[in-house]
């Protein structure tokens, strides 16, 4: 028989490294640093050990250093059962899945990765104990305890070099008292009543600073206000010889009103069922509050927080909180015990957030909170009510866009205006389109005759591109080629039409009950896609109702500098708007461009230009607007700040789809008078039906200057369609697409510095020198990962 090879029971552990790693975990967002982690871990241990109805308390005391003896920071709970249990409990005898019994508190404290399956406190992993050693310059802690039976016990744990040391058996009674006096130079006396004290010997500077400055007390208030409010829990911080400071409810919370009034907007909902596959849970309370504008709310209290066993764990990442209240909006969500336990399984090791936000049950919880928050904001008029599916999707995109802009700003990505201006572009449109019977509801045998696509060159040089015209259907793909891929040349300022085209609806390739797109696509010499324009018709199929019939966008403008800043005497020249009819009806519209004073409810400042345009079905035309001159006499009352350059199109004739006077489309581009612009990157989202073979999304410059961008989402891509049933998923999807395309935009805008910073590239690594593989791996993936981490961590 083969002899058993010799084995070791455990590999060597470098405890110093483990300690460093623990420290890093508490320093990495969403965790808030070692001092914050110390109070969180210590109080959750104490709160979990409370003894029945006895008055519970917790105190933090800083003892100053004395001659030759380091400072001591004690963390003491009272009204608890103390470190009870056998002195020599045999942990090794337990089975793999067995926890140390909850009455063996001493053994649980001394073992690693054991929390004992705590049910009354928020401790989960039994790993937080290491934070106390990490918070000691000498990596040493004492722990003494008076058990509920009156026994006095003292233990010491220290880490030297790579090794972990702990008294083999805690000292008892007189021996423990004597050792305590010796270790602490007589500054500590044995605990008189049941409870446990952890003493951090020679605390690290950040912990000393936080204790002395009041930051630690503030952290306690932010984390433990629920038990302070509900149970009048006494928690204090004392810097000797000063008096203890008792933790209260954060002042920014006011009186946590449950109803709106006195300038507060509040919603408080209780017992909301949350149905999951595994059964029905309950959100015990969801309380959302917006204090009056004059009140400020500290950064660490903002947003919606979820609690477990009385402790604030982390933030529930809500989207679409309007900018005007984002510095005041706060709230909390309390869960029933079963839901707390279920969500706890997704918590990070340091108890500051969720590691897998896209998984159930946290995902469902977040969605519920998002729905309630949206409803609340709609009720108080801070969010538009969504009446249609299209509007709902648009709002999801707006929310995602606002979230991304905030995150990019936080990560130091420059907003609009820092990129090099992009020259004016080529414009593509259909022209002379005249549907039989004046509608794009066609029938087999019909013909669409003599239409063309028109390519206009607004650049300052002759452009050579390739064009191709074809029809396609979503499921079948391409149906008919009307113009094969051909190279064309358009001189600066000129235009070119395709030959007159005709589509005859015969089978094959056309079939009844289908929606067909006719597309002109531009590519460059290498076949790289430049742009496309499509119009649609329906064969024996009722056209889908549209939620808008026209689109208006600022196509180009020559800004006097690299930002959208305009000063007195500046002029914005070369303003060109592209107005596109998205309907099958002819359209006659008046376009008016005006400047509006953003801060003053968009009060009129001046009219910049106006024109009347007639468009055929699906046709696009340009509006060359006169220059915007910043005349001091006109703009002086604004002084400085945001001004909106708004152009809108109003129908000059009624049709079956719109009334005369109806605003058909609008484009608003802000500029900043006598000041540098604020932050903004993505300006909006557009939708197109590209089918499964087209990219999920692509970026498009919103102002042709490369300063702001719009995201074009392919709404017929299978990945997008998969998100249909779940708003939260769709919001996340849109966010992820925006995050991904941000990289593409930054690259196009030559934002090397921003990308290098975001990707944490070494100074020696220049973006232009990176290989394509490195560009993807070291830049694109890393940056997207960072943005997504910020988004999902809330």
């Amino acid at each position, binding site marked *: 028989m083969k002899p058993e090879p010799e084995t070791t029971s455990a590999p060597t552990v470098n405890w110093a490294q483990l300690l460093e790693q623990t420290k890093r975990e508490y320093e990495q967002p969403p965790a808030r640093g070692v001092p914050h982690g110390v109070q969180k871990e210590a109080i959750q241990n104490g709160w979990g050990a409370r003894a029945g109805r006895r008055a519970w308390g917790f105190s933090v005391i800083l003892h100053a250093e004395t001659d030759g003896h380091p400072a001591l920071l004690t963390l003491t709970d009272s009204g608890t059962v103390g470190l009870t249990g056998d002195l020599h409990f045999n942990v090794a005898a337990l089975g793999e899945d067995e926890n140390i019994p909850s009455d063996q508190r001493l053994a649980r404290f001394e073992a690693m990765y054991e929390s004992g399956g705590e049910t009354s406190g928020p401790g989960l992993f039994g790993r937080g104990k290491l934070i106390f050693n990490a918070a000691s310059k000498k990596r040493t802690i004492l722990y003494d305890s008076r058990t509920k039976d009156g026994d006095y016990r003292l233990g010491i744990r220290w880490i030297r070099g790579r090794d972990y040391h702990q008294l083999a058996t805690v000292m008892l009674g007189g021996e423990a008292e004597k050792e305590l006096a010796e270790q602490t130079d007589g500054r500590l006396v044995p605990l008189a009543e049941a409870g446990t004290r952890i003493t951090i010997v020679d605390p690290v500077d950040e912990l000393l600073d936080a204790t002395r400055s009041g930051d630690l007390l503030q952290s306690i208030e932010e984390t433990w206000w629920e038990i302070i409010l509900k149970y009048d829990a006494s928690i204090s911080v004392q810097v000797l010889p000063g008096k203890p400071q008792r933790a209260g409810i954060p002042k920014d919370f006011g009186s946590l009103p449950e109803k709106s009034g006195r300038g507060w907007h509040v919603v408080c909902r209780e017992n909301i069922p949350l149905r999951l596959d595994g059964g029905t849970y309950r959100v015990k309370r969801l309380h959302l509050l917006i204090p009056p504008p004059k009140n400020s709310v500290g950064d660490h209290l903002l947003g919606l927080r979820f609690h477990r066993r009385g402790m604030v764990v982390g933030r529930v990442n809500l989207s679409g909180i309007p900018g005007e209240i984002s510095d005041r909006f706060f709230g909390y969500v309390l869960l029933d015990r079963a839901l707390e336990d279920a969500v706890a399984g997704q918590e990070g090791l340091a108890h500051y957030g969720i590691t897998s936000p896209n998984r159930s049950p946290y995902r469902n919880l977040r969605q519920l909170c998002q729905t309630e928050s949206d409803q609340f904001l709609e009720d108080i008029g801070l969010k538009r009510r969504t009446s249609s599916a299209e509007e709902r999707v648009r709002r999801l995109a707006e929310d995602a866009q606002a979230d991304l802009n905030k995150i990019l700003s936080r990560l130091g990505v420059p907003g609009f205006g820092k990129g090099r201006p992009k020259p004016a572009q080529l414009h593509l449109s259909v022209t002379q389109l005249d549907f039989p019977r004046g509608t794009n509801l066609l029938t087999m045998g019909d013909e669409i005759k003599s239409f063309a696509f028109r390519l206009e060159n607004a650049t300052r040089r002759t452009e050579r591109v390739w064009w191709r015209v074809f029809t396609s259907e979503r499921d079948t793909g391409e149906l008919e080629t009307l113009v094969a891929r051909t190279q064309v040349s358009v001189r600066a300022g000129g235009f070119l039409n395709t030959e007159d085209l005709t589509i005859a609806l015969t089978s094959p390739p056309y079939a009844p009950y289908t929606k067909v797109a006719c597309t002109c696509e531009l590519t460059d010499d290498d076949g790289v896609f430049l742009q496309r324009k499509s119009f649609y018709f329906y064969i024996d199929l009722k056209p889908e109702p549209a939620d808008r019939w026209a689109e208006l966008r600022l196509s180009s403008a020559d800004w006097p500098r690299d930002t959208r800043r305009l000063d007195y005497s500046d002029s914005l020249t070369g303003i060109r708007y592209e107005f596109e009819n998205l309907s099958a009806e002819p359209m006659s519209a*008046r376009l008016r461009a005006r400047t509006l004073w953003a801060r003053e409810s968009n009060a*009129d400042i001046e009219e910049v230009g106006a024109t009347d345009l007639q468009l055929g079905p699906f046709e696009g035309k340009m509006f060359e607007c006169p220059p915007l001159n910043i005349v*001091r*006499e006109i703009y002086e*009352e604004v002084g400085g700040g945001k001004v909106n350059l708004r152009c809108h199109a109003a129908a000059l004739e009624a049709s079956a789809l719109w009334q005369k006077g109806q605003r058909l489309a609008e484009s608003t581009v802000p500029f900043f008078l006598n000041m540098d612009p604020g932050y903004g990157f993505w300006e909006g989202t557009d939708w197109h039906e590209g089918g499964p073979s087209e990219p999920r999304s692509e970026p498009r410059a919103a102002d042709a200057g490369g300063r702001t961008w719009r995201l074009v989402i392919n709404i017929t891509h299978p990945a997008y369609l998969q998100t249909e049933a779940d708003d939260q998923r769709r919001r996340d999807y849109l966010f992820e697409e925006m995050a991904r395309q941000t990289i593409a935009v930054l690259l196009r805008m030559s934002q090397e510095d921003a990308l290098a910073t975001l990707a944490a590239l070494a100074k020696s690594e220049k973006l232009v020198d990176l290989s394509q593989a490195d560009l993807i791996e070291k830049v694109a993936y890393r940056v997207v990962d960072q943005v997504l981490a910020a988004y999902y961590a809330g």
Partner: protein
Amino acid sequence: MVAIITERYDDGRVKTLRSSVALTADARAAAEKLDHELSNRVATLEKGLVAHGLLDPALPPVGASKPRGGAALWHAVGTELDAIVKEYDLRGARERRWLWEAINLHASERIRRVNRGRTRQHFEYCYRLAQLPLSIAKSMFWSEWVYFFDSLTVREEPRADRWLLGKLKADAGIDRLTFRRFTENLNRRIRKTDTSVLTDDELFALYDSIWAGTDRPRSNPSEHE
């Protein structure tokens, strides 16, 4: 073609001169003159209002709540403002906006009202109310007029006043509740309409259709109280 002083420091220095043309020495002098004139005109106006019993002689403390004031009071204020506008040939809403800011420098707390932004200026509402005969103005409470003028569509469409005048003249029995409901319907119906492209006839027909579609209460609820 006018320059208007809109802000003064406590020591009397002028902070801002608003002008639709480049400021010349003559324009500055004219602005100072207008400022002096406004000071006198506003003081005289307030005295007259007190004499006619429209205004309390006592000045309310700054920030204290003030009587709301009736349509007759604000119509009288608007009539004087209208005279100033005509006298100085102030064309356009923007120049009027400056004038109201300038008048705020001279008006007492009795006729000043809280700043609700440049698009909702109290004196502009008084001025617009004064475009209607007093009898018509008095047919509604001031709060109804404010509600009406607050409407974005009315604010940007001066012809709304003309149509309303005709309507109220033709139908003397219009009650406040109907008027309020009409304003609500108006906002809802033409929120996304640029009425500037409509002819007078088209605009008035549109208003008429909204008016016709406004439910009238069968009786005034207060009569049953």
